[in-house]
């Protein structure tokens, strides 16, 4: 049971990463978009003299939410090109493992973008993780995983509609509210030097529930 699962995971991951290296699609759509978003944040919050130390958490999570949405849309669109998603449907693999593989590669790509964003955060907003680096990392990893676990299912649902570009964010963002609340809270508490244990537990719960639901439900998405 475990070995075909791991191999599915490995090759899907390798394929997605190679493809990303070639096209730099996610990097462009997510990273550059985030940088622009952060600059916009600065101007928007400078107007009412919002203290600069309040901005990083907000900016970070808005970037995750919006560039993540953009990125998920792109990865799925590239899967649909040439009918490749059809090839995945027809492959003799359990749908659940294909789902987990997609979640992993999406989370890795988003996480990579985020790693590039942190220096910019430091530069723009005097963001100083200091000693809280590890708890901060944990909060971000849990948050991103939760976000992607939800988004990977929803993007495959809305891909079947006309106007999927608009429908995907509209349907997805309300569903991401719990992840957003828990993620921002955990991040902010980490920055204040506290340990947000209950928010971590909450994020773990969302992850467990959503990953198992995606695992079970994905089979019904691999049908035409």
């Amino acid at each position: 049971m475990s070995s075909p699962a791991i191999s599915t995971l490995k090759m899907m991951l390798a394929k997605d990463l190679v493809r990303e290296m070639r096209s730099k699609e996610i990097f462009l759509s997510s990273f550059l978009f985030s940088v622009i978003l952060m600059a916009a944040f600065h101007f928007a919050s400078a107007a009412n003299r919002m203290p600069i130390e309040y901005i990083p958490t907000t900016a970070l999570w808005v970037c995750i939410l919006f560039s993540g949405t953009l990125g998920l849309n792109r990865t799925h669109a590239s899967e649909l090109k040439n009918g490749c998603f059809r090839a995945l449907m027809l492959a003799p693999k359990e749908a659940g493992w294909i789902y987990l593989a997609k979640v992993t590669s999406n989370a890795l790509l988003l996480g990579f973008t985020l790693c590039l964003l942190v220096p910019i955060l430091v530069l723009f907003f005097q963001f100083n993780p200091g000693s809280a680096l590890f708890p901060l990392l944990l909060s971000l990893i849990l948050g991103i995983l939760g976000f992607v676990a939800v988004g990977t299912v929803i993007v495959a649902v809305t891909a079947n509609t006309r106007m999927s570009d608009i429908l995907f964010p509209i349907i997805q963002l309300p569903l991401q509210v719990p992840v957003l609340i828990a993620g921002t809270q955990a991040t902010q508490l980490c920055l204040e030097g506290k340990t947000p244990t209950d928010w971590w537990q909450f994020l773990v719960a969302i992850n467990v529930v959503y990953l198992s639901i995606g695992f079970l439900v994905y089979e019904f998405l691999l049908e035409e």
Partner: protein
Amino acid sequence: MSFRVHLEAVSKNFGEVQALHPLTAQLGPGERIALMGHNGAGKTTLLTVIASLSKASTGNVHYLDGDRELKKKPEIRQRLSLLSHQPMLYPDLSILENFLFFSRMYDLGLSKDAILDHLDAVGMSGDPNRLVRACSQGMTQRLAFARAMLHRPELLLLDEPFSGLDIRGIERVQKLLRDFSGTVVMVSHEVDHCHALMDEFWILRRGRLVKKLQRTQYDRAQLEAEFRSELPEEL
């Protein structure tokens, strides 16, 4: 090699449109069937239903190995293959990367040389590191055909396999199809190809299977006449 498919009163509707009326048929090992019909006759719909890609609105599709019914989707999908009008190859990956990926997807564990051998059959082993995006339509179609044959399926479902191919490409695909020993279901508009390669001709008209003809009883001209007589008047 005793993979069989039973279609039991299978129908398919898209809302108000009945794409396929209830159809009962069997696909036995080694049978070669051409699906013929006008645009919108339900050929492609039937093909995707057989491929287990879309679920029939009513009726059932049974996949049998000897007397044992195959229930699990991975088990079924290992044995069949679909060539649709989309090439199903990642445009941002090279030819070789694509084939390595699909060889692992089907647990074939093919080496690079084995894949090059396989590509040679469609005349595409020359530049395996070229990106699929950079291939012409005809080259992509050859690759798509090679991809469909990669895991040695027992049932091959082809939707217009010759579209976009040049003379050489057509010859190669024809040769591969002649040598193929499994079951073939082919959708094609070209009466020539159907008559040259297939043994049985199913003519569909407005979602109904109206005629089943044998090659032994019809020469090419007769087949075309039969086919033409079932074309509906234009909308």
